[in-house]
């Protein structure tokens, strides 16, 4: 049985003046422990698909199953990381990382110790009693990762979690997230518009084309690159090759777009 099964997803947003089809005919399967990227220009429905997979709302058509169960029924098994940390500014770091456990009523001493241990693993010591604004952007995003992992989700959704960080912090965090997820054997889906990041982080890349959003092409990242850390992947000779391939595909998408818009 596939770990995550996304079957024939269609999604349409309705407004007063029109109906916009955001996603059309999306089917994909993810095996346990895989790292997948959704790559594409903005407005191709990547985040919508991520929200649907996370069970935040129902698609107009189609279904999403995690280990054979509908995702809408098992929200707390899916972790979600947003573009910014969205730590609650009025809560201490400790309260922030325990928030998920508190919400789904699983907060006990054991889980608490687990969350605090995660914080240490992320290289954050003596921050429990601080408030988010006292930390740097990279530290805050690491705390947000701890908050997401503290509930021990089976599937992790990463919605451009590095896009608001400076380049150096981003490279550091990519390695950290990749290592952490590998060591826990977590399955993850990353949304990004950065080709380099998609190659560096993932095993497989789904390239999306816009209006309506659909899967344009699937790229398997070569075995050699998968075994490298994200930072080493970026410097690997194979990286340039696959980057070129994906880049050309994305370019062709862009030119199709400009043809469409000039009738």
């Amino acid at each position, binding site marked *: 049985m596939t770990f995550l099964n996304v079957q024939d997803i269609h999604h349409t947003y309705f407004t007063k003046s029109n109906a916009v089809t955001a996603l059309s005919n999306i089917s994909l399967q993810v095996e346990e422990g895989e790292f997948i990227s959704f790559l594409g220009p903005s407005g191709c429905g990547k985040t919508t698909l991520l929200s649907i997979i*996370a069970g*935040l709302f129902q698609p107009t058509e189609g279904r999403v199953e995690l280990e054979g169960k509908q995702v809408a029924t098992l*929200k*707390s098994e*899916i*972790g*979600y990381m*947003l573009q*910014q940390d*969205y730590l*609650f*500014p*009025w809560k201490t770091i400790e309260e922030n990382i325990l*928030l*998920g456990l508190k*919400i*789904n009523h699983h907060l006990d001493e054991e889980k608490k110790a687990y969350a605090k241990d995660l914080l240490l693993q992320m290289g954050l010591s003596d921050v429990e009693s601080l*408030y988010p*604004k006292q930390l740097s952007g990279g530290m805050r995003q690491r705390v947000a990762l701890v908050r997401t992992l503290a*509930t021990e989700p089976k599937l992790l*959704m990463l919605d451009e979690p590095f896009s608001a960080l400076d380049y150096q912090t981003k490279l550091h965090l990519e390695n950290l997230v990749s290592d952490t997820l590998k060591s826990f054997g977590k399955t993850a889906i990353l949304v990004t518009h950065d080709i380099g990041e998609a190659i560096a982080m993932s095993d497989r890349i789904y390239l999306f084309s816009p209006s309506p959003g659909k899967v344009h092409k699937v790229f398997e990242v070569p075995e050699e690159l998968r075994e490298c850390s994200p930072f080493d992947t970026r410097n690997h000779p194979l990286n340039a090759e696959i980057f070129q391939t994906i880049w050309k595909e994305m370019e062709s998408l862009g030119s199709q777009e400009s043809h469409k818009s000039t009738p």
Partner: protein
Amino acid sequence: MDHKSHTKALHNAYIRSLKKEKYWVRFYQLVIFLIFFAGWEIASKNQWIDPLIFSSPSKVWELFLIKVQDGTLFYDLGFTLSETILGFILGTLLGTILAAILWWSPFLSKILDPYLVILNSMPKVALGPILIVALGPSFTSIVAMGTIISVIITTIVVYTSFREVDPNYIKVLQTFGGTRFQIFKEAILPSSFPVIISTLKVNVGLSWVGVIVGEFLVASKGLGYMIIYGFQVFNFTLVMLSLLVIAVLATIMYQAVEFLEKKLIKNN
């Protein structure tokens, strides 16, 4: 090394200049205070202003001492203060609860929207006579005045702030499977605390208006009654005393809210 001590010296000079400025601000504030009361006293003594209407600080002070000694001032003051604080708390609390109900049900909020606009634009003190007839000329109807004057505006302001909470905080809670109540408790309410506090500040003033008008209409005791009684018997020293006491009390209440603000929102 030399550079370091130089920076320290500059910093000290900066701190000194800040202290100096603060000192001058306090000085001029005191000057204005003294000029006002001295000017009032002198103008009244020399009949530049009618002492019957404008009284004078010395007469107000004498009356103050008399009323403190016979205890009548504290009796009136306690009456009015309890009405105001009760009206103020009820107005803010009911307004926030109403806002929460509107947030809970967007459908209801669409239905009630025009009624809120009407209630907000209506002068609430005009409801005074109706309240008095309905609730009786008593403590209750005065508290109701103090409440009603602030409740609608509180509802509107707090509800707006509830709706403006960054939807991504809600999304974070939803990904953990948060219920609507948990979303309200963990994200909506705490992130609206600054707005609630600032409506508290406005409501301090509004509740005093409501209570004083209420006392004008019905009371046989209280600071509002002192004003209206002083006006009727042409004892303007009594009116002035009452005004000054109200000014002091309202300021203290405002300061208390500011203190609460500092305690509640250190980290936003």
